[in-house]
Structures are given as structure tokens and as C-alpha cells.
């Protein structure tokens, strides 16, 4: 088999190999119900990674995603009582708005996204602390169930989060493949000067990419708040690095224009399986982090399509 032809398929082959490896050790892992539940649990992380994909796809990065999700858990908890279902709109608007702000600082003020999103994340964190009064907040359980209960139920063995994830994946895949926005983002990621010289409003598209990233981080936060029936300014901590890892392992490198949301779906699943494998391989607590790092190096070395990277920086 021609290795060159195999390369685009390496991410999901890696996923299958990992699943098979864990399955051999313990076949209970392979039970459909188990796999479905594993997939369902990773959904908030997946949604955040989905958003990050857009930022990384244009060659940037969004380090504010975690703070955004934190803020949104607080916003959702504080305003559910007064806004009802409309709080979802508010949350997404908050994420979109902050994302737009990151985009503005990056494109208009020429601050690299690594810094601008970090800084905007700081602002979001401050706002979250202010809104929450620096406390963990509860949603009214009855009201949560009435308004958002559908998000976290189950139909048969299938967790509803998976429907949300698949829906968002389909939507973002459609945006990526079938819309002018997706095409423009690809052009910006792969060749920004050419996109500009073709008359595209590059700045606007980049801002939109960060805004989408923010909005999806907000949805991740909202889903998480619903799942936990509450929010806190630090509750989504620990999301950011796994989400970035999911995007990268999926095969969307930081250089932009390559990869996409489908890759991220696979990447997220790879992260989920690696995590679960710690359990199934009975890895000692003190060894887990080190082994995670080593497996990560292996997975990235396998999944990354070097032919599409001009220089490896």
C-alpha cells in the first residue's frame, strides 16, 4: 500500500488501532453501550475542540475557550431563572461577542491570537468572578430539567449529548465544506495574502472564525452547566489543553488550511480512548500523566500529514 495514499486516513486508523488495543485487554470496553457512553461524556470537550478548530484552521489559536466556557456556566446559572430558555441565546451571544473581540484585537490591532485570546480570556474570567460573586452557583433543578432537560437525557442507549454533537458536527462540516465562509476560511488559512488579493474581506472572516470559536466554547459551557446543574468561574478548568490536543491529534496542524472539523471529531475520540485506556490498562496514578504524554507524541507522530507542512517549526 502506498504510504502517501494512506496518510490522510491515518487519524482514524490510529483511532481504530487504539480502540482495538484496549478492546483486546478488556472486551467489555467494546460493548456498544460502553462506547456510546464514552462518546457521550466527551461531548462538551468535543464542542470546545470544534470551536478551536476554526481558530486553528485559519492558522491562529484560541486560548480563551476555557474561560469563555467558565463564564458561560456562570451566566447560564445566574440568568436561567429570569430568562428561561432564552438564556441559551444569551450564552451563545456572549461567546460570539467575546470571540469577535479576540478577532478584532488580532486582525485590527495586530496582536497575535496566542496573546489576544489569552488576554480576552482573562477579561472573561474576571467577568465570571464578578458575576458569580466568587461562589459556585446552582441552577434550580426543576427549571433546568424543564428548559434544558432534553440535552442530557437518553434515548435507548444513546445519550442526547451525542445528538447535539452530531448536529453541531454536521452544521460545522456544512459550514466548512459548502459555504462561502468555509471556503474563505480555508483560503485565509492556506494563503492569506492571496485571499486578500482576491478581494476577500480577510479581517472579517478571521473575526468570524474567532467568533464561531467563542460561540462553540459557549455552547460547550452551556451544556456543561446543564449537565452539572450549576456553574462556577473555574468549573470548566482543565478543558483547554485536552481540547487543543484533540484538534492537533486529529490532524489539523497549527499552520492552517489543513484538516477540519471531521478531523477534530476523530481527534477528540482519540483523546477519549487514551484517557479510558489508562483505566483499562491499570496504569498507576503516578504514571498516568507521563504515559499520556508519551502516547500523545506517538499519536501525533502518526496522524500528522507532513507532506502538507512546508516547514516544521
Amino acid at each position: 500500500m502506498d504510504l502517501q495514499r494512506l496518510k490522510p486516513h491515518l487519524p482514524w486508523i490510529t483511532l481504530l488501532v487504539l480502540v482495538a488495543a484496549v478492546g483486546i485487554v478488556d472486551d467489555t470496553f467494546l460493548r456498544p453501550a460502553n462506547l456510546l457512553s464514552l462518546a457521550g461524556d466527551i461531548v462538551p470537550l468535543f464542542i470546545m475542540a470544534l470551536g478551536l478548530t476554526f481558530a486553528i484552521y485559519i492558522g491562529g489559536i484560541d486560548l480563551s475557550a476555557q474561560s469563555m466556557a467558565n463564564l458561560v456556566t456562570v451566566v447560564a446559572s445566574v440568568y436561567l431563572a429570569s430568562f428561561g430558555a432564552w438564556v441559551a441565546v444569551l450564552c451563545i451571544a456572549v461567546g460570539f461577542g467575546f470571540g469577535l473581540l479576540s478577532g478584532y484585537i488580532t486582525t485590527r490591532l495586530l496582536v497575535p491570537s496566542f496573546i489576544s485570546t489569552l488576554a480576552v480570556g482573562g477579561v472573561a474570567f474576571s467577568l465570571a468572578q464578578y458575576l458569580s460573586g466568587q461562589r459556585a452557583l446552582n441552577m434550580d433543578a426543576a427549571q433546568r430539567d424543564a428548559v434544558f432537560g432534553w440535552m442530557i437525557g437518553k434515548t435507548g442507549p444513546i445519550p442526547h449529548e451525542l445528538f447535539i454533537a452530531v448536529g453541531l458536527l454536521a452544521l460545522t462540516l456544512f459550514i466548512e465544506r459548502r459555504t462561502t465562509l468555509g471556503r474563505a476560511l480555508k483560503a485565509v488559512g492556506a494563503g492569506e495574502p492571496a485571499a486578500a488579493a482576491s478581494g476577500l474581506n480577510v479581517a472579517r472572516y478571521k473575526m468570524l472564525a474567532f467568533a464561531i470559536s467563542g460561540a462553540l466554547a459557549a455552547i460547550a459551557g452551556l451544556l456543561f452547566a446543564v449537565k452539572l446543574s450549576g456553574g462556577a468561574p473555574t468549573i470548566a478548568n482543565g478543558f483547554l489543553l485536552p481540547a487543543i490536543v484533540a484538534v492537533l491529534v486529529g490532524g489539523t496542524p497549527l499552520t492552517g488550511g489543513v484538516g477540519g472539523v471531521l478531523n477534530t471529531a476523530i481527534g477528540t475520540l482519540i483523546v477519549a480512548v487514551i484517557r479510558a485506556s489508562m483505566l483499562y490498562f491499570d496504569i498507576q496514578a503516578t504514571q498516568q500523566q507521563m504515559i499520556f504524554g508519551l502516547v500523545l507524541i506517538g499519536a501525533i507522530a502518526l496522524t500528522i500529514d507532513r507532506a502538507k507542512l512546508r516547514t516544521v517549526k
Partner: protein
Amino acid sequence: MSTFIKDFIEQETVSRRNFLLASAAGVGSMALPMAFGQGAAFAAENPALAWSYRDRASAYWNAVVSGGENFVESLGKTKDDMTSLINEGSSEKSLADIKAFLAKNSGNCAIACDANDSPNARPVVEAVKAAGGYISTIWNKTDDLHPWDIGDNYVSHMTWSDEKPAEDTARILFAAMGNKGGVVHLGGIPANNPAVERLNGLKNALKDFPDIELLDAQPADWDTTKAAELMASFITRYGDKITGVHCANDNIAYGVLEALKAEGIEGMPIVAYDGNPEAVQMVMDGKLLCTVFTNPYWGGGVSLALAYHAAIGTFKPSEEPNEHREFYGPTVLVTKDDAAAFKAKYMDAIPTYDWSDFWGPSNGGIVYK
């Protein structure tokens, strides 16, 4: 196949009493699945054990885990039979790991857990209940979540009332300050429950000391480095006005001490919290006035013991009174006077605990305000 044999031998060594209880629970028909080597055959006999906690990078959680391991060893198993589910400060990972653990063991689990953030406790216990496992939680839980509302699967919740001990440390601090002067508080991560309670304890004590001023209270995120930098900034802002320091935990106190050391300031009255071995030594050395020992070792052991014994049917949680389902853990104030004795008792040789005495050392039922 070897694990099967091992499991089988262990099952044989389970105490007679438990075995009878299990039989009485109607699992007599286990012979058939056993012949096929199905782990599920031990449903109520040999639950998989796990502790879900933040990380291995702190003395506190280390003590918790050691307690859990000691309990597991008391069952005649090895340390490795208890799985560590490390959430790294991520509620999302905490929940995902617990669900994966439940799935791996088909729900036949006894889990002890700190849910990392209080809202995370509800989805965790609901997941355990749905899978048919048993769980005891510590620290983080929202006030509206109660074991008796969930059922037998949510065995118990233990927390530590930090307000009163923190008030006690504050009083000791104020006394050392001569009942006057200025105090600064370096706190934990803002929204964390213990961080809030420990600051409240300080504020309660202040009411009785009109001549003492709380100059400032800012979060140091439980972190030594951040505490050192924050303390340095406090010294610039308040200078000599600071005559005492109230720290939300031991790690913060280490940072404060080093910041003061850099300034050449010695003998500043400082109080800490958590009772880690290093801090206890510092109390003996007179560097700290006091710290509060919460016996994480015992907490770690007994939480898992509760979940385990509920799982194998030693007791039925719903038949226990509420103060056995939600209770405070022990707190021991460690001052210079009793530090040496304390160290000898708790640190130098870890006391042997009777892991079936679930509530003996506890501190009464949880009271909500």
C-alpha cells in the same frame, strides 16, 4: 485467566460474615456465570474500588489516597486493587473517568470521590446510581444534593466544617498579635467552598477583636509561588501595618514564610490549615502558630470503606440516620504545645484505624445555613 484465579482466591478469603450477608442477599445462583469466568458474577461480593481525586501532586491528596490504600490492604488485597481516577482539576475529566470506570466494571463498583467542583457532584452520583454502583463523596457537593434523596447508591458525604477551626486559628493568631494590629488573609481559589469558609471563620473571629483590622484578603489559589508573590505585594502596600497573617492552607503559609524570609522579617505570627507534616514540623519549630489537621488519611480510608461495605451489603445506607450519611470529618487544632505529641501520634507512625468504625472519629451531622 490468572486474574480470575486471584479473584477467586480473594473471594474465598472474604470474611465469613460478609459472605453470609452476600448469600442472604440472594446471589446464590452465581455458580453458573462463575464457570464462564464472568467478573459480573461477584456483583455484590467483590466490587471494584476507586478513589477519584484531584492530583498526586499534593501532600493532602497523597494522605487521602494512602488512607484508601490502607483500607484496601485491610481487606487482604493489594494497593493496586484500588484504582486512582485523577481529574487534574477538571470536572469534565472527573465525570468522564468515573463513568468509564463504571462501564469497565459493569457498575459493580465502590467509589470514593471528591467531585472537584460542587456542581459536579450531582452528575457523578447520578451516573453511579444509574450504573448500580456505590459512592461516597467528600468536600464538594451542592447544598441541595443529599444522599437520602438519591438512595442507597449514594452512601455518604463527608466534609469538614472549616469555619469554626479557621475561627479558632484566627483567635490564636490575634492573641499572639496582642489583640491589636493588622491582619492579611491569603485565600484559596475564590469559588472553592473551603476557601469561602476559612475566610468566614476569620471574619467571625474579627467581631470579637475591635482593635484588629483585616487589611486585605486576596486569593492565592492554594499555591506556594503565588502566595509568596502576593505576600510581597502586601508588604509593599501595608508595610509595618501587617502584624499577623491568616493563611487558608499550609502551602500558602510556606510561600508567606519565604516572602517574609526574603525581607528578613522573623517572628511574624502566622496560622495555617490542613496539618501537613511539613506544617506540623513548622509549628514545632515555632515558625507557624498553628495548623488544623483534618485527618485526610482517615477520610480517605473511611470514605472508601463506607462505599465498599454498602456495596457488599454490610449495612444498608437507607437504614442509617441522616447524620451517618452526611457528616463532618474530624478536625484537630495543632499548636506548639501539642504538636510534638500530635506528630508522634499521627505522623511518625500512622495509627491503625478500624475501618469498620465508620462514624467514630466523625464530627456530627452536617448543618446547612
